């Protein structure tokens, strides 16, 4: 009766064993999910933030450095036995704040209890010291150390830009997948342009933790950990003293100063007025300050040296003169009567040669010069003739770096505008146009638009007698000690070098005997300059413009100054430019009356 029951038992035992082995085979060998889950249980990936590169000036003075900052992250699945009363006490926050923070955190779309989420940001060293000892009592909360930007001076805010946490939009656009939520990224200025060089490489530490979330040590003695690699340091061409002096002079004014080293194209000063203190856009107060600064009606975030597009005014006459000489429509000795019937002029002069016309900024002279260039009589039709002439003119003028972004190492550089026939076709909507429609170009008014950095670059081109290096802020990156490749390339203009000598002569004359003689002249050095007074809508004063380089031989500085609503170029702009040149060449200024004149800023009081 009981036959076979013994065998049945043996079968059941063996089958049970086999079922177990098969099931174990599946979960241990086939299904790799469990191994990953075990890792996510026991292994915590802690990012190690790299130190961002430092930024120094041309003399090695520190401009931007890093300061430690801590952030608190929470991994909600690890939070156990949370004592909210104690937490509030340790972190100095009210229970309402705590509740709000949890609510906000959970409301975020990307929130997951299995991912570390930012809980408190930008804790200072003092905050950290206070909470450090209590951290073990709050499993699931981790402090991450990183650094934030700090600035040695309130200078250069717009050129440096600022750093902030990567936005959601940027994170989505990031094709490299380098960034993670909560990472810092350069948002403007050098910080944005050199982001790749400055950011460094993030490291990761793998930590073991127990079921309570308490760290138990590293994984296999840190075998898989990667160390963070600091970002590359940047040496700029900025002369911090000169920069600070420029900002001091521009106080209370709107406009810009750009100073270049002609031999290299390095930017030595880049002043935008009005500006702001870069320290405001760092650390915990970033968001509130950013709102304040970005809504300021003076637009302190508008970086005028490269974003403001102005009509150049009379400084453009230098470019006109060289283009005309190159085209052979005048010689240095060509004299033209100062006929003020078509176009206004100023000062007492009547029949100047080129040098005199530049020194006195004679408008009728350049009106005639432009006519000779645009209407060469190559064809009989005056419209077609102007078209051909404008094409040739545009080609020369553009070669000075006008009418297109120069390609400096800052984002958002504007191009300005040098009109071409196509441009006027559009502007006149297909109606015919000829010289008489567009002669304002002659004196840098009309449709011309240039950017202050292009003006300074033009001054440097004249100083170099025919070529320029693209202006750039950073002269050395990291250990390479070299700027980016594109800044080592000479750009030649279409004008013969000989004509630059004539232009320089004329600019010397401007400072020594012409419109710039009162304020731009320096005792111990030959300064070449050109004033410009750009028409503004009354009752606003005209814009004051000055470009210059010095010394005449082996020039060390080329500069453009643009002061909005400040009247004639020979006053505000020429004063500031000459003070800057003096400061750079001699380390100090010896003309307190000019400095006072600039600082008081009543440029329209004296009629000149």
């Amino acid at each position, binding site marked *: *009766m*009981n036959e076979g*029951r*013994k065998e049945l*038992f*043996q079968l*059941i*035992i*063996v089958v*049970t*064993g086999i*079922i*177990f*082995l098969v*099931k*174990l*085979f599946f*979960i*241990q*060998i086939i*299904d790799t*999910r*469990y*191994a990953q*889950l*075990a*890792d996510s*249980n*026991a*292994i915590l990936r802690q990012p190690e933030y790299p130190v961002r590169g430092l930024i120094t000036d041309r003399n090695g003075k520190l401009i931007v450095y890093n300061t430690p900052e801590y952030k608190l992250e929470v991994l909600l*699945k690890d939070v156990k036995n949370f004592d909210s009363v104690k937490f509030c006490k340790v972190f100095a926050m009210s229970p309402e704040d705590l509740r709000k923070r949890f609510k906000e955190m959970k409301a975020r779309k990307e929130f997951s209890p299995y991912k570390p989420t930012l809980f408190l940001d930008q804790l200072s060293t003092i905050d950290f010291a206070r909470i450090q000892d209590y951290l073990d009592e709050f499993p699931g909360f981790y402090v991450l150390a990183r650094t934030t930007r700090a600035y040695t001076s309130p200078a250069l805010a717009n050129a440096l830009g600022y750093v902030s946490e990567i936005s959601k939009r940027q994170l989505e656009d990031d094709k490299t997948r380098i960034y993670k939520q909560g990472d810092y990224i350069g948002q403007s200025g050098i910080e944005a342009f050199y982001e790749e060089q400055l950011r460094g490489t993030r490291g990761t530490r793998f930590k*073991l*933790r*127990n*079921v*309570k979330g308490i760290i*138990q*040590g590293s994984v296999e003695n840190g075998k898989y950990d990667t160390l963070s690699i600091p970002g590359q340091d940047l040496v700029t061409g900025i002369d911090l003293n000169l920069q600070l002096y420029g900002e001091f002079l521009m106080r209370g004014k709107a406009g810009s100063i750009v100073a270049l080293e002609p031999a290299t194209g390095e930017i030595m000063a880049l002043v935008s007025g009005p500006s702001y203190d870069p320290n405001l856009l760092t650390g915990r107060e970033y968001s509130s300050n950013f709102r304040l600064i970005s809504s300021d009606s003076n637009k302190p975030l508008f970086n005028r040296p490269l974003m403001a597009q102005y009509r150049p005014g009379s400084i453009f006459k230098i470019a006109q003169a060289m283009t005309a000489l190159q085209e052979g429509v005048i010689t240095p000795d060509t004299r033209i009567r100062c006929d003020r019937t078509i176009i206004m002029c100023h000062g007492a002069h009547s029949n100047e040669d080129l040098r005199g016309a530049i020194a006195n900024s004679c408008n009728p002279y350049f009106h005639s010069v432009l006519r000779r260039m645009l209407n060469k009589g190559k064809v009989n039709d005056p419209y077609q003739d102007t078209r051909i002439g404008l094409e040739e003119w545009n080609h020369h003028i553009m070669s000075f770096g006008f009418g297109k972004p120069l390609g400096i190492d800052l984002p958002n550089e504007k191009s300005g505008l040098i009109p071409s026939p196509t441009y006027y076709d559009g502007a006149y909507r297909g109606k015919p146009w000829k010289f008489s429609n567009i002669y304002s170009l002659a004196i840098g008014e009309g449709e011309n638009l240039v950017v202050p950095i292009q003006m300074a670059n033009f001054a440097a081109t004249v100083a170099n007698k025919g070529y320029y290096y693209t202006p750039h802020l950073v002269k050395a990156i990291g250990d390479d000690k070299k700027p980016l490749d594109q800044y080592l390339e000479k750009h030649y203009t279409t004008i013969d070098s000989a004509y630059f000598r004539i232009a320089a002569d004329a600019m010397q004359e401007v400072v020594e005997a012409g419109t710039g003689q009162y304020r731009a002249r320096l005792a111990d050095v030959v300064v070449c300059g050109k004033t410009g007074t750009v028409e503004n809508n009354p009752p606003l004063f005209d814009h004051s413009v000055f470009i210059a380089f010095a010394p005449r031989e082996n020039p060390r500085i080329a500069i453009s100054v643009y002061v909005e609503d400040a009247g004639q170029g020979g006053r505000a702009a020429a004063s500031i430019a000459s003070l800057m040149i003096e400061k750079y060449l001699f380390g100090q200024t010896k003309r307190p009356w000019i400095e006072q004149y600039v600082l008081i800023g009543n440029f329209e009081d004296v009629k000149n």
Partner: protein
Amino acid sequence: MREDNISGSLDWTTIGLYAAMVFLGWLNIYAVGYDENVGHSIFTLSLNSGRQLMFIAASVVIIFGIVILDMRFYDAFAYIIYGVILLALLAIPFIGKEVGGNKAWIGIGSFGGQPSELAKFATALAVAKYIGSVGFRMDNLRNQAVLFAIIGAPMMLILLQRDAGTAMVFSCFMVVFFREGMSPFLMIVGFCAAAIFILTLLVPNQWYLHGAIAIALVMLIAFGKKKVKRMVLLTLGAILVMGVIESVDYVITDVLKPHQQNRIKALINPDADPLGYGWNVTQSKIAIGSGGISGKGFLQGTQTKFDFVPEQSTDFIFCTIGEEEGWLGSVAIIALFTTLLLRIIYLAERQKNRFARVYAYGVGSIFFFHFAVNIGMTIGLFPVIGIPLPFFSYGGSSLWGFTILLFILLKIDAHRGQLLQRV
């Protein structure tokens, strides 16, 4: 003269398996409590492994005691031992202390003991004694009733201590009854009820099941013999099954306690609440599943060391083996158990008298139940039922209980020729 020769007649194969399992269990208990920052040795008394070593030492003393005692003692004193253990179980609600939700401990000095662990061998002895007694007939209803009373009494007393897991162990004596000639009907009915129960939990809507049963009934009636009696029986059976299905929901929500409901829910879908009631099973599977083929190495299991699996040194000790020794280690352990179980059946079948054979089957079925349920729950094949893995789980009572079970069998087996003479 025979007494002098006792060591020669003991089954050394079983003793070797026992020793290997106890030793491996001890190593794994050390691995669970291991903390590399502290670096205690395996002998440290403040660790579970140190205490387990003491329990092992005590087991050796117990083994000597069992072997030295005259084998007739177990036969003669079976009911007395059973009675004493029942009294101890009765006393627990009054003098016991609560550990881990179960009130199953009796304090003896600084050590606690669980009489329920000892009830297993006592009941096995009593069942063997009763079935082995002269005039016992398995098809006698009165005899059957007494048998069920013998296993029912400790079951009920242990259920009173809210230790359903241990109570369930006693149901495994059904296997013994089956071996001794009880009709398989009860076992088949029980198995079917369990299958329907699980099926009801797995199928979200019981109307699917009702539909399937109705279709099966129609098919059976349509294609079978058209006898009225058969048709009535089939219909009644179908109604009965449907009733079971309907009652499952009632049992789940109204009879089972919340933690028991959750254990069953965790088996069906552990991912529904991996941080709550699914935690044990989820973490247990993660630990075992992360072991791979050859495991992470002794003392290298992260889940083991950092306490991710609760009760890992006791009921979930198999996780340590799965994680640190991998699939190959698991194969070895399962092979050890399978070999031991087959060996016990071999020993049982070579007994010459009924008392010895019934006792041996009792031992085998108890070990099998523990082995199947314990490992089954750690790999998610069975609901979480808190019973230890014999010889591996940490704890004095369970180790002693299993040791006594096994060595009484070995003692009886050593004298199997003598028994023949006596009867």
